[in-house]
């Protein structure tokens, strides 16, 4: 059965897809490419005592959404509006839906209030915050909620319709793949789109994904209805397993249990490289033999993607760059601008570099590392042109200090706030 742009499609008894097809979209949220367009999936669930709407669509597709909705329900039957995620591609039709069904109650996650406020701008927002275990009855059937934050925003949740074994998953298990045949066993090959979507939206939150899978694994899921892409009715558990596989480390770390420090550098005349080697040597010397694994990489000839994979698994990152025209060198920024694809929480960062005139690169890199939410507890080392033995000793001390922080051996520092200015 194909979905039709002008009519709702039943995906389970009393449950209809009432979303919209957007086959011409080629870029989603600016950063995600969409070779096959996308869909904005919304659903209507009919119970003996009313109708629930699960998510809406992007605003410019509201007419399609309301047309389908009207084909399966009257507005005065709508008692419940569930918003699994409040980004505009899922809430664009919400204001108009509330105008047409003012009696409906909104159910959102406990983290979604500020987003709802940003969308509706009402003085008194009427909504019910829900979390795992909370339910809402539609008479002969019941929706329950799973608190699954950061998949991929803080507000995200899943909704479970037990009698149908149906998980309304929001953005997880979704993908940007528009095919009017709607169901995963009927559409074209969307495996790449599924993995690509995970890599760009979920990968930075893979620990949260694994937490969510713990909740989902406990459910007898027979159908997954995500917010984008095909409805997964054929072997839905395959997609759950795929998420688990994708959320496990990209690179198997044979040094498991050992702290890892990556030292990246660029060097025009060998000076920043000499500093990099001193940082690495200082780190190697710290702690018990084998307690820390230090790796040196020349960024000038490295590819960004494999470095991102390495960084995802690392505990500490150090960047060495010369200063050219008052800036760090482009390969450093290319790598640092690619790190939002992975989780960086708790990692340690530092910078160093040789310079000829003004030497701004080190502080700029440190600022960027802080901006990426790394911890930067040690001040970087700068050297004018050829580093002196004293400056190389400072590099060794930087490496040593980083290693001590990584291995939990950092000595207690007591400082006055005035010294931090």
């Amino acid at each position, binding site marked *: 059965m194909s979905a039709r742009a002008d009519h709702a499609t039943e995906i389970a008894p009393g449950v209809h897809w009432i979303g919209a097809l957007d086959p011409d979209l080629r870029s989603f949220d600016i950063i995600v490419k969409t070779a096959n367009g996308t869909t904005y999936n919304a659903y209507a669930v009919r119970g003996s005592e009313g109708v629930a709407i699960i998510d809406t669509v992007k605003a410019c597709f509201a007419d399609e959404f309301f047309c389908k909705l009207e084909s399966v329900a009257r507005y005065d039957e709508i008692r419940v509006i569930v918003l699994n995620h409040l980004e505009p591609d899922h809430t664009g039709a919400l204001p108009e839906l509330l105008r047409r069904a003012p009696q409906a109650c909104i159910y959102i996650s*406990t*983290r979604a*209030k*500020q987003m709802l406020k940003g969308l509706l701008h009402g003085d008194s927002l009427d909504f019910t*915050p829900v*979390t795992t275990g909370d339910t809402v009855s539609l008479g002969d059937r019941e929706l329950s909620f799973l608190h699954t934050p950061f998949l991929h925003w*803080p507000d995200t949740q899943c909704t479970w319709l037990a009698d149908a074994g149906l998980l309304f998953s929001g953005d997880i298990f979704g993908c940007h793949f528009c095919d009017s045949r709607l169901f995963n066993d009927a559409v074209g090959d969307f495996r790449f789109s599924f993995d690509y979507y995970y890599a760009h939206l979920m990968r930075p939150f893979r620990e949260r994904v694994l937490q969510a899978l713990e909740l989902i694994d406990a459910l007898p899921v027979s159908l997954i209805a995500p917010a984008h892409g095909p409805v997964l009715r054929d072997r839905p558990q395959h997609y759950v397993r795929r998420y688990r596989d994708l959320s496990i480390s990209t690179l198997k770390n044979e040094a498991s249990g050992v702290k890892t420090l990556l030292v990246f550098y660029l060097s025009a005349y060998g000076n920043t490289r000499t500093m990099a080697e001193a940082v690495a040597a200082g780190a190697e010397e710290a702690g018990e033999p084998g307690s820390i694994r230090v790796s040196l990489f020349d960024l000038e000839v490295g590819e960004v993607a494999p470095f991102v994979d390495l960084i995802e698994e690392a505990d500490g990152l150090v960047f060495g760059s010369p200063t050219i025209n008052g800036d760090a060198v482009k390969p450093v920024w290319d790598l640092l601008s690619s790190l939002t694809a992975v989780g960086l*929480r*708790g990692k*340690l960062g530092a910078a160093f570099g040789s310079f000829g005139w003004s030497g701004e690169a080190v502080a700029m890199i440190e600022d960027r590392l*802080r901006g990426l*939410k790394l*911890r*930067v*507890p*040690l001040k970087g080392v700068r050297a004018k042109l050829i580093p002196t033995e004293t400056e190389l000793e400072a590099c060794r001390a930087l490496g040593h200090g980083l290693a001590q*922080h990584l291995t939990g051996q*950092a*000595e*207690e*520092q*007591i*400082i*006055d*706030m005035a010294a*931090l200015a």
Partner: protein
Amino acid sequence: MPKANVTFEDVNVTVSVPAGTRLIEVSEKVGAGILYGCREGECCTCLTKIVSGYEHLAAPSTLEDQVLKDNLAPRHHRLACQAQVLGGNVIVKPA
């Protein structure tokens, strides 16, 4: 000026600060792992565990209190962008 001591447990750094200092004014400078988002007390990204010395912090504002409740914050947790240290010794770490 009255002073207080704030220890950022995850980096093992103690900072002597003037009374009234907010945690956000210090934590990034010492490289502590407290993360910030909006920095205005709304997003709850900087939720921080007060390991000890909770009584030495200024009471949360109505806004902070509501955000802590909305986000189901555990006991003795505060927003680092809002919490002001009034005196004594306070030990904190990322939530």
